[in-house]
């Protein structure tokens, strides 16, 4: 009895110590904030599983609409672009802890995200769409998904929309995957009834991999949704670099060129 009490105390003390360390590290990360980015290198993070915006092909190069766009912005502003991959849910924390200068990952501008980061001017107009298996009938709107199984990607607005269905009908099952590709695989093998995700990505998937197995249904929704490039909250300098660059490539026709390459 006595030894187990001692052990319990030891456990509690270790747990408390851990909390203390965490609290300290929380303070520390805020202080380290004001460091300027190394000169003329733009450290960009993305989640490279979101074709045609960002993905990796054959030669292990980051490719896609967003990737071409950020490289063009870097070029216009005289920055060397360094890309790195992370889980989608880690992109904003990476900005907050100064591990990257900006994040471009088909990220919708939402009020919740704006509490944590600042967004560039919108660079893409997006919206959500529902994808189902080829032979599925009777699903066209979010409300049709009540009580069904929905697949989505962690941290996306598609996930928010799926959760809103679950709030209306608690029998709804929302299955969250790290990567949208896994959600589509799950749809193909019948583990979920539908995938709620960004239209451009779903359209690209159905055009390429998901042909003959999946289809899009209903209308585009959340159509007031825009993608923005995220920077650390309050980093006005970086925001200016990106917005200016975006302005330049829109003015000189480079943006249209990239847009045509991926969406027409």
């Amino acid at each position: 009895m006595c030894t187990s009490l001692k052990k319990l105390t030891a456990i509690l003390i270790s747990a408390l110590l851990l909390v203390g360390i965490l609290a300290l590290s929380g303070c520390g990360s805020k202080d380290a904030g004001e460091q300027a980015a190394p000169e003329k290198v733009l450290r960009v993070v993305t989640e490279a599983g979101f074709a045609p915006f960002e993905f990796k092909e054959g030669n292990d190069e980051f490719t896609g609409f967003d990737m071409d766009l950020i490289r063009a912005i870097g070029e216009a502003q005289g920055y060397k672009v360094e890309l790195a991959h992370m889980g989608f849910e880690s992109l904003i924390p990476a900005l907050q802890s100064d591990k990257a200068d900006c994040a471009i990952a088909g990220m919708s501008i939402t009020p919740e995200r704006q509490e944590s980061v600042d967004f560039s001017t919108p660079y893409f107009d997006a919206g959500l769409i529902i994808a189902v298996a080829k032979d599925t009938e009777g699903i066209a709107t979010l409300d049709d998904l009540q009580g069904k199984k929905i697949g989505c990607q962690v941290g996306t607005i598609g996930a928010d929309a799926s959760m809103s269905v679950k709030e209306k009908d608690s029998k709804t099952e929302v299955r969250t995957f790290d990567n949208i590709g896994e959600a589509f695989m799950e749809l193909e093998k019948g583990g979920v009834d539908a995938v709620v995700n960004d239209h451009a990505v779903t359209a690209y998937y159905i055009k390429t991999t998901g042909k003959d197995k999946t289809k899009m249904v209903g209308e585009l929704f959340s159509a007031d949704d825009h993608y923005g490039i995220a920077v650390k909250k309050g980093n006005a300098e970086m925001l200016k670099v990106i917005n200016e660059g975006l302005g330049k490539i829109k003015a000189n026709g480079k943006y249209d060129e990239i847009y045509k390459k991926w969406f027409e």
Partner: protein
Amino acid sequence: MIQVIPFTFAFNPFQALLDIHGFEVVAHNFPSFMVGALITLELTALAVAFGMILGLLFGLLKMAPQFKPTYWLATLYIDFFRGTPLFVQILLLYFGILPVFGEIGAFTSAVIACSLNSGAYIAEIVRAGIQAIDKGQMEAGRSLGMNYRQAMWYIILPQAYKVVIPPLINEFIAMLKDTSLVSIISVSELTLRGKLIYASSYEPAWVWGTVAIIYFIMTKLLAMFGDYMERRLATE
């Protein structure tokens, strides 16, 4: 209910803590963390339970090289599941192999993947445990007129049981931590819940700190249980 309050405090420590965003996130999502921890425990318990059956079976087969087909089967099984990452096994089974056998849910697939993986490690633990028992025990059993099976079952295994407790608890703890990998196929255990809460709160230190503490408490309890078992089974 009547309470006598001698002083009134203007400062409420709990309220002050709630003002910290990260703490509020953790406090608000605490039930979700707990459910996640339960699913983690359930998954681990099932995986190790099935793993022990598989481990005992394949461990014994591996010890009988005179039966060639079963010996090679056991060797193949153990080598494959010890020699490839559990992460890859989970994805391979869930998306690649199990769909062939019809629709198998994510949780079931996770249990199957973790059991097969655990079984391979336990098979080696079983083999080591049996080999640690003095050869004379088997000979003594045989000289009493028992056959190989009887001597194994009544003489060797009960003694080996004691030897394998520490490595088995070790395997239990390792499996408990490794179940975090099944978050990739959207089994909503502790790690996936952490990921989801983290994705909407952007509080890495608080969310992952809480997840770490919960895992730590679970593994510590397991280790204490292991110590208790060892003490109970100690002969001298």
